[in-house]
């Protein structure tokens, strides 16, 4: 089954609920190695996304993601704003004005999101950033789509890989963002951005079933 604008909005609402639920956990992760604002910032952004969607759901999934992008860019206030904002914006551009998304479109949208994040943040796998979660997620989504899986299964594969990727940041030395100032002292902590990416993808997968 495909994913229309209403379902895309539902997926984002689920993401907002997850962020609200895990707000304290994300901020605590960020307190260990950063500036202790990731949960607060992301929650402020997604609460604004909810408000925007409550005011009216646009007609296509791409337009829904674009609303999320511009809202997150304006409201988040930390690195997650430009990074998630760019991710949703690139995905929205990739999806164009299609009224319904199939598994191929979802995989392509995720790939575009990753490319946007990498272009914006200049991070690569191993730097202990959200790229450590998002890149394996995109690859898993593309494999799942190639295996003929549907939208929900593609997103589930992405969420599983993202969780593994987020966990893989624990032993890493952060090389980007505020945590990079800690050098080796950042070892032993999961990256907050990778963790929020995994949480969001999990909520998207569950809401798309």
């Amino acid at each position, binding site marked *: 089954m495909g994913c229309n604008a209403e379902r895309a909005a539902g997926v984002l609402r689920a993401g907002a609920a997850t962020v609200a639920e895990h707000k304290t956990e994300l901020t605590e992760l960020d307190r260990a190695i950063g500036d202790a604002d990731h949960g607060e910032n992301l929650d402020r952004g997604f609460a604004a996304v909810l408000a925007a969607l409550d005011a009216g759901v646009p007609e296509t999934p791409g337009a829904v993601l674009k609303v999320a992008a511009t809202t997150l860019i304006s409201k988040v206030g930390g690195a997650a704003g*430009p990074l998630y904002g760019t991710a949703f914006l690139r995905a929205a551009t990739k999806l164009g004005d299609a009224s319904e998304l199939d598994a191929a479109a979802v995989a392509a949208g995720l790939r575009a999101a990753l490319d946007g994040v990498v272009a914006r943040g200049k991070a690569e796998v191993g730097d202990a950033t959200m790229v450590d979660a998002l890149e394996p997620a995109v690859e898993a989504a593309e494999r799942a789509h190639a295996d003929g899986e549907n939208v929900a299964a593609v997103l589930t594969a992405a969420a599983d890989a993202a969780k593994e990727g987020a966990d893989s940041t624990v032993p890493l030395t952060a090389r980007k963002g505020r945590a990079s100032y800690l050098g080796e002292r950042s070892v032993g902590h999961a990256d907050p951005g990778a963790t929020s990416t995994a949480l969001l993808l999990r909520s998207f997968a569950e809401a798309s079933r």
Partner: protein
Amino acid sequence: MSGELVGLVVVSHSGRLADGVAEVAAQMAPDVTVKPAGGLPDGGIGTDFEAVLAAVTEAAAEAGVVVLYDLGSAQMTADMAVESLPEPETAVVVDAPLVEGAIAAAVAAQGGGDRAAVADAARAAAGRSEVADTAEAAGAHGAEPESGAGARAEITLGNEVGLHARPAALLARSIADVDADVQVSLGDTDADAKSVFSLMSLTARKGDTVVVTAKGAQAEDAVARITALAERNFDE
């Protein structure tokens, strides 16, 4: 859009930090528009895309805008603000030390430098010790001006603070538009007279005698301007 001088925007996670950097930079460049964009709308720490976009738009001049930032997300927010301008190519986000870069950029903008020159001045503020080292190395090889008109003057500094920030800025500004390569030397150390930080790195004090050398079409004019400024004790 107005103004023939390049405008500056200072993006910071903190409103007070952005305001302070803009204040210090503006002191060196009275005619340059320097807009701070720091902190979140509620006064918290972070970078606010809409505030940055507003500052870039307000500082926009026909000559363009140079945007400086403090850390991480400030750069990404600045990049996004510039990308969303009607004419993104009129603005440039530079990787430079915030305080030194803003001051160097402000002085370069005040001197009528174009967008590329102002951006270069900000970037060069990061490596000013390297610039001084290079100049010293060139001096050690005994390199002399080979062509073009040359001019030279010895100046004993009579002002209280020597070539400190304000006098150095005045000196650099006085010759910013002159077609000549100008050096100020103290002992074995040479400084680029158009660079505030290079001049400051001489740490020339009251009573020191510096040598001004210039080559190029307006070499004599450059030396005359600097001599006149020193004779006025840098307007102290």
